[in-house]
């Protein structure tokens, strides 16, 4: 078991449903281990977390659930999206903010960056990512996300995680970036300023990441705003592939480019204009990495 003091709670193994579920999960893990060619449990055991006095992660990370999730993510990462990862050794030791462009209607880019950190980085890095606060109101999601190490996005949480030297995945574009329509593909929308202030405050290096391949997984021709408003969603994309009954994303080839880390110094409470300069630097770096990646690739699926 990954944590020294971690115990499976009593009575958990009693229910036949759980036992069946666990055996299915174990099979998935075994298949994934064959495909990925790595020991999933060893990767999870290799990460450093900060368990509390009773052996639980204070943010709710659960290694048992995460091994199934990592197995699934590994299959997506290696088989379905055939991700190519460049420059992952540029991630420095200790606390780090991983800043990437957001795309693709569903946050598969986050899953793939996380899999790259877990499966491709050596030693494996435990990725935490900040999720929207309303996900905490959804049943099952609110239970699942913390177990996988996802944290509700709030500056206090981010500060606490960085102070304990964790790596944090941030998408400064937010919901605007992920719900872009196809005509705006690979054009970065406005970045929030919060992540740079956070980096300045906690003295954290920022690693820019360009994600190529996300925009074509769910091409959206329009955003049906009234329905989005009605359903209280950030956007309601109209995706042609849905009309052909294809619910799964298109199997595009993903490329992840990790850039050289930025180390900023300055006052975290500086005026917006001073912080914006640094944000612009990160954004333009990611944009140029995206542009270079797009020039280099020969096709969407190869």
């Amino acid at each position: 078991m990954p944590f020294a003091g971690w115990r499976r709670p009593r009575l958990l193994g009693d229910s036949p449903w759980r036992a069946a579920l666990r055996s299915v999960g174990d099979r998935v893990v075994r298949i994934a281990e064959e495909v990925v060619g790595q020991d999933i449990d060893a990767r999870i055991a290799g990460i450093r977390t900060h368990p509390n006095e009773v052996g639980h992660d204070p943010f709710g990370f659960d290694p048992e659930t995460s091994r199934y999730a990592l197995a699934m993510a590994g299959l997506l990462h290696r088989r379905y999206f055939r991700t190519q990862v460049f420059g992952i050794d540029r991630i420095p030791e200790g606390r780090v903010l991983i800043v990437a462009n957001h795309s693709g209607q569903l946050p598969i880019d986050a899953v793939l960056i996380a899999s790259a950190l877990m499966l491709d980085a050596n030693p494996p890095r435990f990725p935490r990512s900040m999720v929207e606060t309303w996900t905490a109101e959804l049943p099952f999601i609110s239970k699942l996300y913390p177990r996988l190490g996802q944290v509700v996005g709030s500056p206090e949480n981010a500060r606490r995680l960085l102070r304990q030297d964790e790596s944090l995945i941030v998408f400064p574009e937010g919901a605007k970036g992920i719900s872009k329509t196809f005509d705006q593909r690979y054009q970065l929308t406005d970045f929030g300023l919060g992540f740079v202030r956070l980096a300045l405050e906690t003295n954290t290096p920022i690693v820019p990441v360009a994600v190529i391949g996300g925009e074509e997984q769910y091409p959206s021709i329009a955003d049906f705003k009234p329905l989005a408003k009605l359903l209280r969603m950030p956007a309601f994309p109209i995706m042609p592939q849905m009309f052909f009954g294809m619910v799964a994303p298109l199997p595009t080839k993903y490329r992840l480019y990790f850039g050289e880390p930025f180390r900023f110094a300055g006052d975290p409470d500086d005026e917006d204009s001073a912080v914006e300069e640094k944000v612009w630097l990160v954004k333009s770096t990611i944009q140029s990495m995206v542009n270079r990646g797009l020039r280099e690739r020969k096709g969407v699926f190869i």
Partner: protein
Amino acid sequence: MPDPQPTRPTKPSARPGGEPVEGRPSARASVALGVFGDSSPPIAKPSHTSGVRPRPATEGAVLVTGICGRLGKLLARELHRSDTVVGVDRRPFVGRPKDITHHEVDMRRKKMKDIFRGRNIRAVVHVGVLHDPRRSDRERHSWNIVAFQKLLEYMAQYEVPKLVVLSGANVYGPQSNNPQFLTEDAPLLGAQHFGGMRDLVELDMIAQSFFWKHPSTDTVILRPCHIVGRVRNAASNYLRLDRPVMIMGFDPMMQVVHEKDVVRAIQLALRPGVRGIFNIRGPGEMPLSHLVRQAGGRPRVLPSPLARLALDQLWRLRLSSFPSQELDHLRYVCMVDDARAREELGYEPTHSIDRALRDLRRVRYLV
């Protein structure tokens, strides 16, 4: 201090305008029920000892309100070894240590003032907060706010140098957008979805304003997470159930703290010079499902609307004492960061969760 026998009601000449303390049947006998819903029969004769001379100014007593609650008793037993303890409660103090003076009065009565006037009070510990959701809003408000304001009035008048108020982490309220750990400056949104919390939030606010208005008094507000142990509060009663309800699809992280750790925190807060607001956390946090199982229960998982409906019905039929708004505690996190208490108060939880849950099981929960 040897307990002087209750000989005769003294009427010291040093009490100008003071009404007779003794020899009057308790006008509050009809409402002298327990603060925590204890339904022991009220006794009409006040049991407190009189004839105690005010102590010299160097010592001073610690006044504990709500001393007859489980936590109050526990606190009194710890405190009376080193301090003079004066208790105030509407209930009789069963099993009172001999050197504790107990006044069986309603805090809203004028008699409270005599207690302040009669002796040198060094500190006031306010534990007598009414949490019972079955009581009417009016009574809760009158007890938690009016009585507390009276208490503060007397404290200001008699220049008591220390006030310790036991609030709770519930005043922050479980919210979906809470950070994982709430610091002391987080907004108090506990009453946002649960009106029953309104006067507890107000009580905390009143204590805060007293902190600013009377800088000569060291005011300490303690906000512990769910206190468990032999106490009879919502959290302990929930964990005492054999089949506690959990909401389908939710499993928030939970903090519990043993009652004795809270008592220890109060003792630390009583030291001179300590002031401010302190969150009190137990030894670690764990998912609710683990906590329930470790307490020996088997969760009954229900979808949220069904749980709400069922609980409302049970509440109406008096089969449960949990208002359905409290279900939010089973859905969202409401955990506190105790860094300040560790640094400034020197607080460290010493009782493990296992121990707390073992103690909890020793008391049965009866609706």
